[in-house]
């Protein structure tokens, strides 16, 4: 049975696998934005605290995403459409 922290490592490495085919800066931004958007703060804290212990098992892209300021980097994943009613018919994915 994997520990909770090792499960976080596994999940984060899978996110890194998905973004690996993008340029590195975009991949780091993509991983960071995904983790911030969909993980709880506790999960993020736990994984950040576990970086040293995880060592090579944690993908370097994830380490960068957790420890660097990525606010100026652009993720390959666009944010959801905002104000779809202002953009015209079909701008919303609701329904």
């Amino acid at each position, binding site marked *: 049975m994997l520990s909770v922290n090792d*499960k976080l490592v*596994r*999940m984060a490495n*899978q*996110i890194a*696998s*998905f*973004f*690996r*085919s*993008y340029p590195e800066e975009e991949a780091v931004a993509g991983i960071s934005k*995904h983790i911030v958007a*969909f993980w709880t703060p506790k999960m993020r804290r736990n994984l950040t605290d576990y970086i040293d212990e995880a060592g090579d098992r944690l993908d370097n892209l994830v380490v960068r995403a957790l420890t660097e300021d990525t606010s100026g980097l652009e993720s*390959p*994943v*666009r944010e959801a*459409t905002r104000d*779809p*009613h202002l*953009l*015209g*018919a*079909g*701008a*919303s994915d*609701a*329904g």
Partner: protein
Amino acid sequence: MSPLGGYGDWEGTVLLSNALGYPMSYTHPSEIMDEIASLTPSFTGVSYAKLDELGSVQWPCNENAPNGTPMMHVDRFVRGKGKFMITEYVATEERAGPRFPLILTTGRILSQYNVGAQTRRTENSRWHEEDILEIHPFDAEARGIVHGDLVSLESRSGDIALKAVISERMQPGVVYTTFHHAKTGANVITTDFSDWATNCPEYKVTAVQVRRTNRPSDWQAKFYEEDFSLTRIAQSLDAAE
């Protein structure tokens, strides 16, 4: 069919809301539709009268498209010509091996809906009374399994028992079952792997072994016992002589 609980879902919601102190005074679902239309720009033109008149309405339905929009994105997507994304394949970490040489994939059939909380109470159950395990003739023969045998299905997570059906719909090496009946316990078998993006559980890839058996699994035996003890419908008694 008329609602088994005596009330439609919307009526139940209204009763619950009123009981919790948030008054709702709808007397017909059309009033709820009107409220949705007043609040949702892409539904502004939708009403029960229009639905009755047109049969169905495809959204968006508003002042720009009074009868709805049968086909969206005809000339362009909202952002233009669309944007292609690279979607790297992220492989599962589940592995078949000597102890668990087969791959189980779970799925649905048309006549039951998910865990069947609604559909198992209907006549649909005549079409699908229980979950069965479909297995390719080669895999069955190697295990001495014939059509209708009770088999044990075991993974690294747990084990259950269910009836086997020999089927060439399966590829050799792959077995299949549905998860419509709680007493089967399909989730006892599946693992805690999930996908990276949405954490959706991985119900399509579980390494398993299949063997003949003559009894339900321990989990199922416990479940049957609890299910029976928690059922509040009185069991009929023989009349005293």
